[in-house]
């Protein structure tokens, strides 16, 4: 083979054949440099370290999110010699590598999605409280699943749960979680709330929940969604897009349903308050009635006193007008027979008359009569 002469195109074809056989797939990790996007479709970049630089070529559909020069990325790809443009690695997948780059990538994606309004507080919806049917997206074998179910049932009964068992980490996780959310949204017997959850883990383990795909799926869910990722320091993007976030799977269950023991205590308090209100009401009414009675009594008393006063006045007047009173003062009544005498004209000399004094009744004879002048 050493002596074979080849045309350039033959050499390219031979080399590519050899490379494909020897390296069907390679993984290269390095610092991103000269990153650029062409026509919104093609991606060109280099990966480098202190000694070497390797060119890469791919499409925007393989990007995990926005990338920047200087980030550490891990690229899976196929090495190829291009007939015109020379050597490059055709990428199959790109993922941020190393904690710094993962954070950086997440920050860039977060800024992009935030600008689109996915995390707006105005988008958050109220959850049904308590829900009747929960769509649970998590790993069926996980502690997260067990904890969520345990706490939910301990607090509240009768909640139906539909589990969609997914991988919550690894390369397949984002697609599975996204599909699960879509599946539950499309179900004819759809849940009234979704819970997407997993326990704690390293930044790498939790990466699925900060991917653009999962974050968009959570934001797009027609069913209100809770995202609960255990014990992390940084909040995942899916949590930011969720209608409600919880710190752990158990916390999600706590937020989702009331605690029946606590509810019973609350009911007792309400009952006591109700009784108290009712008692307060009757007490107030009784006090008002007593006030009425007191006022009425006063009015009746006043009226009675006025009546008594009036009668006393009448009585005093009557006493003053007692004809007998005049007699005690020295006046006398003069009668002839039953007729009272009021004028000398009624009397002749020699008449027998009856004179009534205060303390005596006499018969007298008129001996002389003299009319007063002018009469």
């Amino acid at each position, binding site marked *: 083979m050493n002596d074979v002469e080849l045309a350039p195109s033959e050499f390219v074809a031979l080399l590519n054949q050899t490379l494909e056989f020897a390296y069907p797939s390679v993984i290269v990790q390095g610092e991103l440099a000269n990153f650029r996007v062409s026509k919104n479709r093609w991606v060109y970049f280099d990966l480098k370290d202190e000694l070497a630089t390797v060119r890469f070529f791919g499409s925007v559909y393989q990007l995990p999110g926005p990338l920047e020069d200087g980030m550490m990325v891990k690229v899976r790809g196929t090495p190829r010699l291009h007939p015109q443009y020379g050597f490059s690695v055709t990428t199959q997948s790109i993922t941020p590598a190393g904690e710094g780059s993962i954070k950086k990538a997440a920050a860039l994606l977060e800024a992009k999605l935030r600008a689109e309004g996915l995390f707006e507080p105005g988008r958050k919806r109220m959850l049904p409280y308590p829900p009747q049917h929960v769509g649970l997206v998590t790993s069926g074998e996980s502690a997260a699943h067990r904890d969520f179910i345990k706490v939910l049932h301990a607090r509240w009964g009768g909640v139906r749960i539909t589990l969609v068992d997914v991988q919550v980490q690894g390369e397949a996780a984002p697609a599975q979680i996204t599909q699960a959310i879509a599946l539950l949204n499309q179900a004819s017997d759809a849940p009234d709330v979704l819970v997407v959850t997993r326990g704690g883990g390293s930044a790498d383990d939790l990466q699925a929940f900060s991917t653009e795909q999962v974050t968009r799926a959570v934001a797009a869910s027609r069913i209100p969604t809770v995202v609960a990722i255990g014990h992390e320091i940084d909040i995942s993007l899916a949590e930011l897009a969720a209608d409600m976030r919880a710190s752990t799977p158990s916390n999600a269950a706590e937020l989702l349903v009331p605690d029946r023991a606590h509810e019973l205590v609350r009911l007792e308090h309400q009952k006591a308050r109700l009784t108290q209100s009712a008692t307060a009401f009757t007490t107030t009414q*009784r006090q008002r009635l*007593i006030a009425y*009675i007191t006022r009425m*009594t006063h009015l*009746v*008393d006043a009226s*009675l006193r006025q*009546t*008594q006063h*009036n*009668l006393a006045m*009448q*009585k005093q*007047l*009557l006493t003053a*007008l*007692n*004809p*007998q009173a005049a007699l005690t003062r020295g006046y006398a*009544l003069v009668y002839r027979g*039953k007729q*009272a005498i*009021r004028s000398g004209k009624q009397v002749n000399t020699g008449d027998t008359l009856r004179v009534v004094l205060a303390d005596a009744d006499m018969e007298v004879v008129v001996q002389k009569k003299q009319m007063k002048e002018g009469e």
Partner: protein
Amino acid sequence: MPKSVQKSYQDVSAELDEVLASLQNADVQVDEAVKLYERGLQLVAELEKRITQTENTITKLTLQAERAKGDS
């Protein structure tokens, strides 16, 4: 005027006022005055009786109300 068993306090009091007015009339005859005076005394006695009855009724009702208060 409806047929009533007893004249009202007001009516009796009004009659007493009439008696007093008649007694104050200068033209009233002595015999008449005595009759009016007697009538006046009757009316006063009647009114005093009525007031006493009313007082008793009020006292009774007030006691009932007090007892009702005590029950609360």
